[in-house]
């Protein structure tokens, strides 16, 4: 029997920790948001070393950006260590940034259509950046002219 307050039906109160129900939709079937949240933290810790190291080497260490050019890149990418570093940084930063922007879009784009298309644009651009970037690292040719 429904509980009443002064004769009116009281709103149902869910038991604590009952699964979140999407308005008009089925309840979440996966823990995707939990893993996305965890990924932001794990990739963040890795990016701390990869990105700050990259900025230090490229902008500050002997001569900074002034010494960068094709020859500099060829010298660095001769080593599998730096190719691995750059590939890892590319993939982690792009996935981290994409998930971050997904949150931002979900926060500000209120119309379902707008949300959907902004996220499609985001995912297509992320796919392009990861594909192009890794292709460049894997197929780099120091003797190109």
């Amino acid at each position, binding site marked *: 029997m429904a509980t009443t307050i002064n004769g009116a039906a009281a709103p149902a109160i869910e038991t604590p920790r009952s699964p979140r129900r999407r308005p008009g939709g089925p309840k979440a079937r996966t823990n995707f948001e939990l893993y996305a949240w965890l990924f932001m*933290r794990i990739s963040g810790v890795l990016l701390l070393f990869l990105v700050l190291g990259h*900025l230090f080497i490229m*902008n500050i260490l002997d001569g900074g950006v002034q010494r960068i*050019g094709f020859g500099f890149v060829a010298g660095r990418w001769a080593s599998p260590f730096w190719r691995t570093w750059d590939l890892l940084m590319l993939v982690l930063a792009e996935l981290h*940034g994409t998930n971050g*922007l997904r949150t*931002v879009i979900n926060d500000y784009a209120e119309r379902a259509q707008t949300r959907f298309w902004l996220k499609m644009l985001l995912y297509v651009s992320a796919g392009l950046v990861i594909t192009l970037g890794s292709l*460049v690292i894997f197929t780099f040719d120091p003797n*190109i002219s």
Partner: protein
Amino acid sequence: MPKAPAGTLYRGREGMWSWVAHRITGVLIFFFLFAHVLDTALVRVSPSSYDSVIATYKNPIVNLMEVGLVAAVVFHALNGIRITLIDFWKSGPRFQRQMLYTEIVVWLVLVVPGAFFMLKHMFETLFGSAS
């Protein structure tokens, strides 16, 4: 008039403003990354086309913007560690404010000398100092 709720971890004051700065810097870095992967991809086209985009980074105005980008990345990185500590360290939420002030000190310690060296390289190239 009901009294405004006292600031919580994410409402008002340090907690909220650090979140705002984290969001703005994150979005800024994301768009720069997009451009940066495209410019680096020119190494696959020809040495001269790569060298000509890199020349824009060596322009003093762009170099100044690059100093700003480095400052934004360092803030986002340090604040990301603070967020992770708030979430996983049991005293994290209690010390979130102290961690923010520590972070600002560490940020200054990294960014001020960093900016100095970035600008030093720029001036040396501009005015041809021997080094």
